């Protein structure tokens, strides 16, 4: 879904914070998943994951595995938290809850993160995952600074 107007950021493009580059560069699992990060015209960051055979949960329905969806959500949440240039180090994910709203069939899914609250010790992030216009899952992640 690389629509015109989205420019792939790659690993060392401008616009990513140092910590974001670290997460993308130094995490082998991010490469295994095949996460794509790009920047929209309006300046927001776009996170996408294209379906691959290794993402399969139910092989009969060809849906994303629940663990892959949660992994995608967590990595996007972590990237979103360190978008803030004021973050000195990668915070630690201490807990996640994840709701599966609809089956996520093979396709390109998109994650939209939002900081619920960034406190002095903890940061709460929610991530909504969409397949086209359909809201397939939502997660809440807690990070300790």
């Amino acid at each position, binding site marked *: 879904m690389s629509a015109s107007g989205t420019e792939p950021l790659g690993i060392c493009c401008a616009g990513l914070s140092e910590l974001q580059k*670290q*997460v993308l560069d*130094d*995490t*082998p*699992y991010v*490469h*295994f*998943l095949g996460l794509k990060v790009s920047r929209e015209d309006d300046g927001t960051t776009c996170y996408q994951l294209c379906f691959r*055979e*290794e*993402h*399969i*949960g*139910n*092989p*009969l*329905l060809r849906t994303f*595995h*629940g*663990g*892959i969806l*949660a*992994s*995608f959500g*967590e*990595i996007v949440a972590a990237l979103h938290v360190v978008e803030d240039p004021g973050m000195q180090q*990668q915070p*630690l*994910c*201490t*807990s*996640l*809850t*994840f*709701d*599966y709203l609809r*089956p996520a069939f093979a396709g390109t899914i998109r994650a939209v993160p939002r900081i619920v609250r960034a406190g002095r010790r903890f940061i709460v992030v929610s991530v909504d995952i969409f397949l086209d216009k359909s809201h397939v899952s939502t997660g809440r992640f807690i990070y300790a600074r």
Partner: protein
Amino acid sequence: MTAQSEAANRYLTMAKTFFGTAHPLFNAFGIEIDEIGKGRAVMRMPSNVALSDRNGGLHRGVVVTLLDTNCGLAIFSRLGDMRPIATIDLRVDFIREAPPGEAVRAEVECYAVQGDIAYVKGKAVACSDDSLLASVSGSFAVGTLGPAFDATVTKGAE
């Protein structure tokens, strides 16, 4: 062999066939089943550099995937068949990151089935010293969309 252990063996074979040979994700992860029966399932996966976090241990997303998979197997073992199920929600608390090079074992129990909902809880531990890495609890919808997982397996075995 007692009827019970025969049934357990049958499910173990069924599950191993389903999870072991044809499933690309479980192949990539190297997931192995240690134990299945009475609503409980134990799975294990080796350390894998391609699936690691920055520190070289298995990434927490991988641990969640292992736990989610294991929840499914625990439910199958309680139901006594492999009718389709789907995760409703999952909570995972990360106690400690998986140490570099460490294999991880997941132990999950399906402790209740009420109506169309199965409830699970469990944990992931480091294989070398059984130390706690993560805990999980969740609920699954039973009898969801699609054919039963054991339909092809049981047909193939006949």
